C-alpha cells in the first residue's frame, strides 16, 4: 500500500465524493484517516459541504439569507 500525506489524502477524500476509489486509493485513504485527526475533520467537512446543496431543498434547514437585498 502506498503511504500518502495530508495533501494527497484530501485529493482522495474529494474524489471519493465524485467517483468510486480504486482499491489502492481506498486503502491509502483509510490508513491515513486512521492516523490523522486533522484529515478526519477535513473529511467530515468535505462531506458537510457535499450535503449543503441538498439542504436548500429541505425546508427545515433552509438557507435563510434574504436574497432580495443582494441585488446591487
Amino acid at each position: 500500500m502506498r503511504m500518502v500525506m495530508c495533501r494527497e489524502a484530501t485529493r482522495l477524500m474529494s474524489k471519493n465524493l465524485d467517483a468510486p476509489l480504486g482499491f489502492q486509493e481506498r486503502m491509502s485513504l483509510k490508513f491515513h484517516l486512521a492516523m490523522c485527526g486533522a484529515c478526519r475533520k477535513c473529511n467530515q467537512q468535505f462531506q458537510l459541504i457535499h450535503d449543503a446543496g441538498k439542504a436548500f431543498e429541505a425546508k427545515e434547514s433552509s438557507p435563510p439569507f434574504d436574497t432580495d437585498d443582494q441585488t446591487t
Partner: protein
Amino acid sequence: MASWPDSSQSDTSKPSAERQRRLAAVRPRLLAFARLQLRDASEADDVVQEALITAVEKNARFEGKSGYETWVFGILKNKILDALRAQKRHGKWQPWSDDGVEAAIEQQFQSSGRWTDVARPSSWGDPEKTLFSERFWQVFDSCMIALPDNIARIFTMRELMGLSTHQICEEAGIKENNCWVILHRGRLLLRACLEKGWLSEANK
C-alpha cells in the same frame, strides 16, 4: 411576487391556494440557489421566474412522488442548466486562469504534504447544528462569492445541482480528471474560507 399566467387555455388546473403559498415561500431559496449557480442576479431572477411559471403551468404533472418543493427545485435546475448552456454558447465563460488558486492551496500544505499550522482543520462542532445555523449560511454565501468563477461553476454544478462529474464534463467540455482537480481545489478553498468565517464568529 410572481404573477400567475392565465392558464385557461391549457388543460392543467391552477395550483391550489396551498401550493401558491408554498411557491411564494420557496421563492427566496430558489433565488439564493440560482444566484450561487449563475453568479448573476438578474439572470437568476429570470430563471426563477421561468421556473415558477412552469411550476404553475405544469401543476397537474406533479404526482407527489417527491416533495412539492423538491419538484419545483427540479424544474429550476433544468432552467439553470439551459441558462448555463446559453452562457457557454455566448462565450460568457472566461478561459481558465489560475487567479492565485494554486498559491492559496500551496499555503495550506507544507512541502512534505502535511497541513500547515494555520490551515490545519479544526472542529466545526455538530454538523447537524452547523447546517441549521443561519450564520453558517451567511458565511457559505460569502465564501461561494469569493470562489473564482471557473471553480465555482464546476463546484456548484456538482454540489448544488447534483450533476455527476461525467455530466459536468459534457456540459463544460472538460476531461473528468480535470473536473476532479477543480472540485478538489474548490473544496479546499471553500473549506478554508468556511472555517475562517464560521469559527471566528463562533468564538466571539
